[in-house]
């Protein structure tokens, strides 16, 4: 993509907190209409980077342009053009869904003549119309997220930023949030920039940047990234595994690895390899398992460690505690 097309463009972003470098030189360019995912474990620098792009933090070094505007020089104009969905809930739960949207429309100077129309449209798009007059405290976690997305879209931003939009939601709700995001991209033509530490979610993105310890370690489409693992993983079992191993090496030119009585091999393309394997082998093949490499494999290969979920677990717990607190308070 040429630089001119990019709606988000960052070069050499650095953020230091005292001696600690949370972000250590990030370059990226996101094109118009893309769904761009920022994938990495907690503490990798995802939230810091997204906060810089949203003008909530100033970078220690480097520069970034969002919607063609410098985030350091003119944060107010950037904010007018972006929608934000924060990692932590930021709704007023004593107000109704509609009131939360009205509040936002006022703050962002949506013209009075347009306000009602846009609110109705967003409520309908995110399927909240019939609950719009209920107080937000009666909403489920997924509904609150949808309301926040609706709110982020009210002032017709060019780019929607979402920080861990599906954190703490159940898989079904996460799925529906994704359906809504895709719909927004298709109908409104906006660019979506999001962070996540869920590997399976990153697959929905057009392109992904994998970030670890403050740096981008890989950037590409999910398929491109998976191709970095070196192909598919094929595992067979055979009652005569010695013969099978010898034949595979002789006929197919692949050296299988013995693993718990089965034979495992990495091949460029399992779709082509498996039919040949079944056709050519004279030794009996009892089972064949093939696995496409996942982004987990990619992350493991690139960083040497797996994305762990325990940290998120604690965070979810804290979130639950916070909401209990709120329930008691009000």
């Amino acid at each position: 993509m040429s630089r001119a097309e990019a709606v988000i463009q960052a070069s050499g972003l650095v953020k230091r907190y005292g001696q600690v470098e949370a972000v250590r030189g990030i370059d990226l360019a996101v094109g118009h209409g893309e769904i761009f995912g920022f994938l990495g474990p907690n503490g990798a620098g995802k939230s810091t980077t997204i906060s810089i792009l949203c003008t909530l933090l100033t970078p220690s070094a480097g520069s970034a342009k969002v919607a063609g505007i410098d985030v350091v020089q003119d944060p107010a104009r950037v904010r007018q053009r972006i929608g934000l969905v924060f990692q932590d809930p930021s709704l007023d739960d004593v107000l109704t869904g509609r009131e939360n949207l009205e509040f936002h429309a006022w703050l962002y100077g949506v013209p009075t003549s347009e306000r009602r129309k846009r609110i109705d449209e967003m409520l309908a798009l995110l399927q909240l119309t019939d609950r719009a007059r209920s107080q937000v405290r009666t909403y489920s976690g997924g509904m609150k997220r949808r309301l926040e997305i609706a709110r982020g879209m009210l002032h017709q931003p060019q780019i929607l930023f979402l920080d861990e939009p599906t954190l703490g939601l159940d898989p079904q709700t996460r799925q529906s949030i994704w359906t809504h995001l895709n719909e927004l991209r298709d109908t409104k033509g906006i660019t979506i920039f999001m962070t996540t530490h869920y590997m399976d979610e990153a697959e929905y993105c057009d392109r992904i940047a994998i970030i670890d310890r403050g740096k981008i370690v890989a950037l590409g489409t999910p398929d491109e990234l998976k191709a970095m693992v070196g192909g598919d993983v094929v595992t067979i079992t055979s009652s005569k595994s010695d013969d099978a191993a010898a034949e595979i090496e002789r006929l197919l030119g692949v050296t299988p690895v013995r693993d718990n009585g089965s034979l495992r091999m990495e091949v460029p393309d399992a779709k082509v390899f498996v039919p040949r394997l079944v056709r050519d082998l004279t030794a009996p093949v009892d089972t064949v398992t093939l696995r496409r490499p996942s982004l987990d494999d990619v992350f493991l290969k690139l960083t040497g460690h797996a994305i762990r979920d325990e940290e998120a677990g604690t965070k979810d717990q804290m979130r639950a505690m916070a909401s209990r607190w709120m329930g008691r308070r009000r």
Partner: protein
Amino acid sequence: MTATATASATTTFAPADTRMASLRAIYIIWYRDILRYWRDRWRLVASLAQPLLFLIVFGSGLGSALGRGTVFGAAGGFSYIQFVFPGIVGMAILFSAIFGAMSIVWDREFGFLKEVLVAPIDRSAVAIGKALGSTTQAMIQGLILLVLAPLVGVKLSFLTIAEVIPLAALLAFGLSSFGVALASMMKSLQGFQVVMNFLMMPMFFLSGALFPLTNLPGWMTVLTRLDPASYGIDPLRRVVLSDSGRPSALVERFGLTINGQVLPIPLEAGIVLAFGAVMLGIAVVMFQRRD
């Protein structure tokens, strides 16, 4: 669609609109507070329970102990419950103003403040809107208590009520601004207890709400004159008790003095207004700092 096409569809502000945008933001932040106040009617009732308790317990209990031989014992004078009544109105204003303003700390803790702070508005609007919202609530809380006047034998004419309203609003404004300034410096709920015990309670006790600020030990006289709430509660009392048909000298006897001179009400009002303005200024500066 190209990026430029989208940009033109986006609402943009001309610089001339900035003042209008700030006013609009102040209004919507104020409106949200009022909406929440109205929706949370239990809080409204609960927050009236405390002043009521004070009025009954202090008014009746302490009142009967403060009989003959005290300033409240004289024939034709004011009873203690009549004296304390405007003080309790002031107390309701003091507590709801500071608590209301400090709800910003809750907003910060539970995320909503973020939605406001990232909006393309001048942040001073946040401080001002919040101070005005909490002023309105506190004023209503105080004025509601005036319906109890007949029960404690205090007469109120419409004219007097018309005089009480701006004074109540002023006290509410001074203390709300104080609350917003405090909240702007607090990053979490932890400081809340400290503010409660070391600022609000002393402010209340030293304000002259419960006892006349005359013939006190020297150190205490100084502290009561340093308490901004004293300058708000004293005019409330003098106006509320002015309809009783008793000689005005009796009312003036409770009046706040400096060097033996009773302060004129406009001066007291000016002091409260100035205090509120300074506090609001501090809050605005604190809010404009970018985290």
